[in-house]
């Protein structure tokens, strides 16, 4: 499961890591994701979810992805219901506590149509971090004594050679592809993140390919003016796609909050018959729209304006 060091090095060496224009469309970027690939998603719960990129992957009818994320919200349901993935790796999976337990997640996992591989939240973070650091594992001090560790494939305990204490070693996670949505980046992939960065910086370093979607593409000159604000470096990035409201109906820090009415609509649609509800939702919002703007239109202009108004309030005193 854990890649050998030489294998990881070889994959990285083969990448073109130079400063070059990587701007492309959602459809072109979707072609960079192979069926069966292991894919890490940036953001967390209903924040900075790379929703537009997932939307493009669903429309491109990708399948068999093994998808990891810190915490899964509605995008986890979408992964299962669209056929994009039957295997997710995360620490928590439901729309959000205020909407109760996800009916779609329950329907797929309880019927064994899909797997929800559970690790502790910190274990997810440290697995990405080990991957980012180029080491095969990270030592940690939680998960032990729980049922979670028994079901987490690959975690090993060790006796610390320095202190004699029992430690847990969690294996590095170097995803084939990372999908990360950011507030702004340049054409080369230098990205700034405002507010909460979640596990995104480690994910970008760990992955063997990174696709950035961004609210806005800015000049490299602008990035170079504050290089200490660059959180993801161009050398890790393989594609840059400009997608305004690319996390909708989730939030993007400082720009828009979650589209709550739409999140309620989704919960209602999937509450009674999760299979049919999710299929209806996918048809209406994923397959039928002619483009991303049409998707946003179907969510609704008033919703968008409201989410934006709430989102920009973070900076008001």
């Amino acid at each position, binding site marked *: 499961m854990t890649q050998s060091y030489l294998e990881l090095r070889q994959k990285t060496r083969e990448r073109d890591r130079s400063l070059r224009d990587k701007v492309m469309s959602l459809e072109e970027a979707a072609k960079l994701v192979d069926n069966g690939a292991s894919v890490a998603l940036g953001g*967390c*719960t*209903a*924040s900075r979810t790379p929703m537009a990129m997932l939307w493009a992957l669903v429309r491109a009818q990708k399948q068999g992805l093994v998808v990891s994320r*810190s*915490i899964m*919200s509605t995008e986890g349901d979408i992964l299962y219901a669209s056929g994009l993935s039957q295997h997710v790796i*995360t*620490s*928590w*999976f*439901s729309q959000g*506590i*205020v*909407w109760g*337990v*996800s009916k779609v*997640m*329950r329907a797929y*996992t*309880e019927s064994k149509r899909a797997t*929800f591989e*559970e690790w*502790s*939240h*910190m274990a997810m*973070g*440290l697995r990405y*971090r080990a991957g980012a650091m180029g080491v095969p594992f990270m030592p*940690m*001090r*939680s*998960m*032990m*004594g*729980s*049922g*979670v560790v028994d*079901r987490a494939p690959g975690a090993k*305990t060790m006796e610390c050679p320095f202190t004699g*204490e*029992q430690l847990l070693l969690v294996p590095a996670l170097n995803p084939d592809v990372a999908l990360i949505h950011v507030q702004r980046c340049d054409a080369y992939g230098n990205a700034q993140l405002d*507010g*909460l*960065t*979640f*596990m*995104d*910086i480690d994910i970008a370093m760990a992955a063997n390919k990174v696709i950035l979607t961004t609210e806005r593409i800015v000049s490299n000159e602008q990035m170079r003016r504050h290089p200490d604000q660059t959180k993801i470096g161009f050398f890790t990035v393989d594609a840059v796609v400009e997608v305004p409201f690319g996390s909708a109906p989730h*939030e993007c*820090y400082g720009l828009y*909050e*979650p589209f*709550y009415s739409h*999140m*309620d609509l989704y*919960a*209602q649609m999937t509450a009674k018959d999760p299979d049919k509800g999710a299929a209806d939702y996918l048809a209406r919002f994923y397959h039928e729209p002619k483009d991303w703007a049409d998707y946003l239109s179907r969510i609704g202009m008033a919703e968008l304006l409201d989410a934006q108004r709430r*989102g920009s309030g*973070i900076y008001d005193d």
Partner: protein
Amino acid sequence: MTTEPVRTTPALAAVPAYTASELLGVMSARLLKDGQTVFAGVGIPLLAAILAQKTHAPGLTILFEGGVIGPFVEAGKLPPSTNEQRCTRRANMLVSITEVLLMLQRGYVDVGFMGGAQIDRYGNLNSSFIGDADNPKIRLPGTGGGNDIASLADMIVAMKHEKRRFVEKVDFITSPGFIEGGDSRAKAGLPAGGMFRVVTDLGIMGFDAQTRAMTVVALHPGVTPQAIKDNTGFDLPVPSDVPVTEVPSDVELAILRELDPARLYTA
């Protein structure tokens, strides 16, 4: 966001001035001390931590697992989880998720504070599976930060007191309490932290210093020892001289209601 109908537990039928969730919020807020650092989960913990900050513990440092240190969440703007920008309002510092969890591991956190779906005699919590893990009746959302918090901090758990939630042995240990009691927690590789208090709508529970089994340390107003036994799925000792908590004050309730006017968490 949808809200559930207001729920009144039998024991609280005589005290209609507050909901079970409000009682939970107030009682657990009171357990937090000024100057402490508390790692708070979403729901009642988030609400109770903010309430504590606005009452007796203005210097309480709240951490959220989204990577938020020392925020002041605004009334009427509760987040749907601890990972959205509403959590970051007037925070002192934002860090990555991994860093904020590592603060637990490094020992910077005094109290972990979360909700629970199912708990057992030794304070083990289950939020993963109802029934057999390989063939569950219900797949629950999972650990989130719960396992890390419970493994690395002194814990306060806030949850509704029902027989189906207070069980002899949890179906699955998502977040470890004292595991099998005694020193089994330390032997499992968890020498630090552990269950401190369980706050419910019926009372406040602690854990025996030796056996690590749950015991009642206070009852809420109007709750009889029998009521708490009736709602618990294992033998839960109630000391004969058990104290009774003070009813939620008007101020506490007013603040809670101002914080959560839509009753997302306090319905």
